[in-house]
C-alpha cells in the first residue's frame, strides 16, 4: 500500500495541517463543519495529485481550501442560508501563514510526549503498553483486566487523539488544566458514543 502518492501526501500536505486548520477556522464561521471541510480539502488535493502532482503543494492546498469554501458558500446562498464568512479575507499570504514543517526529532518527541499526556487515563495506558513497551494486545488486556476488544477500542481512540495533537489541529495551550482536558477528550470521543471503561 505505501505508494509514492501516499508518501507525497504525508510529507507535503499533512505537514501543513496546523496552518490549514487555522486558516479554515478563521474563514469559516461554523466550527462544527471544520472537520468535514478539512477532510474534503484533503480528498480534493489527493485526487488532483493523482492526475498531476502540484509543483507547489502548500499553495495548491490553500487554493483548494479556498475553492471549497467558495463552492459551499455558493451552494448555501442558493438556499438562502445566512451569508457566511468573508471571501475577501480568504486570500492569505500562504508563505507567511504559520510555522509548520515537522521539526527535528527531539521537537517531534516533545510534541508526542505532550500529546500522550493529554490522553484519558485508560487510553494513555493502552497506548503506552502497546506502542512503547510493545506488549501484545492480549498481554495488555490481561494486565488491565479488560477485554481485547476494549484494548483495541482504546487504541483506536488513542490513534485519533494522537493524530489530532500531532498534526497540530488540536494545538491546545500547554497550560490547560486537567479538568478541561478531560472534558475535551470526552467530546473527542463524540458520536460513536463508546463508553469509557
Amino acid at each position, binding site marked *: 500500500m505505501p505508494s509514492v502518492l501516499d508518501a507525497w501526501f504525508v510529507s507535503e500536505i499533512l505537514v501543513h495541517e496546523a496552518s490549514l486548520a487555522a486558516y479554515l477556522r478563521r474563514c469559516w464561521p461554523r466550527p462544527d463543519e471544520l472537520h468535514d471541510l478539512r477532510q474534503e480539502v484533503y480528498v480534493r488535493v489527493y485526487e488532483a495529485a493523482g492526475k498531476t502532482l502540484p509543483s507547489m503543494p502548500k499553495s495548491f492546498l490553500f487554493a483548494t481550501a479556498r475553492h471549497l469554501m467558495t463552492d459551499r458558500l455558493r451552494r448555501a446562498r442558493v438556499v438562502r442560508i445566512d451569508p457566511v464568512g468573508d471571501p475577501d479575507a480568504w486570500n492569505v499570504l500562504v508563505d507567511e501563514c504559520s510555522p509548520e514543517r515537522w521539526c527535528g526529532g527531539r521537537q517531534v518527541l516533545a510534541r508526542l510526549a505532550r500529546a500522550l499526556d493529554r490522553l484519558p487515563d485508560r487510553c494513555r495506558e493502552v497506548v*503506552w503498553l502497546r506502542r512503547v513497551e510493545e506488549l501484545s494486545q492480549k498481554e495488555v488486556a490481561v494486565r488491565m483486566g479488560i477485554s481485547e476488544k476494549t484494548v483495541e477500542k482504546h487504541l483506536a481512540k488513542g490513534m485519533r487523539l494522537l493524530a489530532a495533537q500531532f498534526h497540530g489541529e488540536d494545538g491546545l495551550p500547554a497550560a490547560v488544566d486537567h479538568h478541561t482536558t478531560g472534558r475535551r477528550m470526552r467530546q473527542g470521543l463524540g458520536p460513536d458514543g463508546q463508553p469509557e471503561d
Partner: protein
Amino acid sequence: MDSLRIEQAAAAWLARREGDHWNPAQAAALEQWLAADTAHRVAFLRLRSAWEQAGRLKALGAGLPRGRVPPRGQWDAAWPALEAASAVDAPGPRARVDAALAGVRFRPREQAPPAVGGRQRLAGIVALAGLFALAIGASRQAEVPPASFHSALGEVVPVTLNDGSDAVLGSDSRIEVRLSPRRRAIALTRGEAIFDVARDPQRPFVVEAGERQVVAVGTRFSVRRDGAQVQVVVTEGTVRLEPVAGGSSLPSALLPAGSVALAGPDGVSVLSPGVEAATRRLAWRDGDLSFEDLPLAEALAEFNRYNPRPLELADPSLATLRVGGSFRWSEPERFVDLVEQLFPVRAERRPDRVLLHRR
C-alpha cells in the same frame, strides 16, 4: 457528521491492523475499504502517519521499569528548552498564529530591489534568499510541462493551475500555461480570463495578451482581448501592464486595485472606478453581465461573447441608446424582451440571429 465517522472507521482499521489477529483476509478487506473512497484513504493516511511517528515515544521508555506507565508531565520538566524551541507547541500557539494572520493580505511586490549597502546588508539578503530556497525549493519541481485550457462559446471554465493560482476562463477563451522555476508565463491567446494569483515573489506571474503583458506577484485581475485591444481589470493588489519583452516602446503602467485599463495600439487609458465597480466587471464569472449606462451596441457585443446566435442592430441609430442593470449572459432572449419593452425597438428573431429594428 460524516467525516468524523470515517475517521473513527479508519482508526478502527488501523487498531485492528496493529492487533494480534491481523490476517490476509482482513488486509484485503482494508484495501477494499481504502479503494472505495478517497475520504477513507486520506483519513487512514493521516492516522497512520501520526501513529508511525508515535513510535518515537519508545525513547521515553528507555531506562524506565517495564510494565509501569509513568505519571504525566515528567517529560516537560526534562526538556524545558524544547518548549521554547518549538513554536508550534509553545503555549497559546493558536492565538499567536491568528494574530499573525489577521493582518496578512496579498501585497504587491516591492518594485525596486533595495540598494545594497555594505557587507552586512548583503549577508542579510543572502540569508533571506536561503530561507526562501528552503521554504519553496523543497517542493518545487524543475519545470512543469506546458498546459493549455480553453472554453467553448457560452462556457465559463474554472481552472486551478499547478502553482495554486486560480483562473476562470470566460466564454470562448484559451490560455497556455508554462510554469518554470523562474517565471509563470500564461499566454491569453483568445478571449478573457480572471486570475487569482498564488503569491510567489520568486516567480512573477506574467499574462501575455498580444502586444501587452500583465505582471503580477499575488493578486486578482482579469485580462481580456478584443482584437488588438487588451482590457485589464484589477480587483486586488497591483499589477504592471507593459509591452511584451522585446516589443515596441509602448508605455508601461502600474495598475492598483480598482482600476480598469484599456490598451490599444496607440496607448493605454486607465480608469479608476474603484474596487467594487471593477469587481462588477467580472460578474460574468457567476453568470451575470453588469452594465452601467452602456451603449446598446456594446451591451449586445457583451452578450454575443457568450452566445452563438448573435444580437445585431439593423438600425445603427439604436447603437447609442444606453442600458444598465444586471443580466444573465445565458439568457439573451430575456434581455431582448426587456429592450423591446423599454425602447422603441422591435426584434426580428431569425434562426441564426436576432435583428433589432427601430419601431
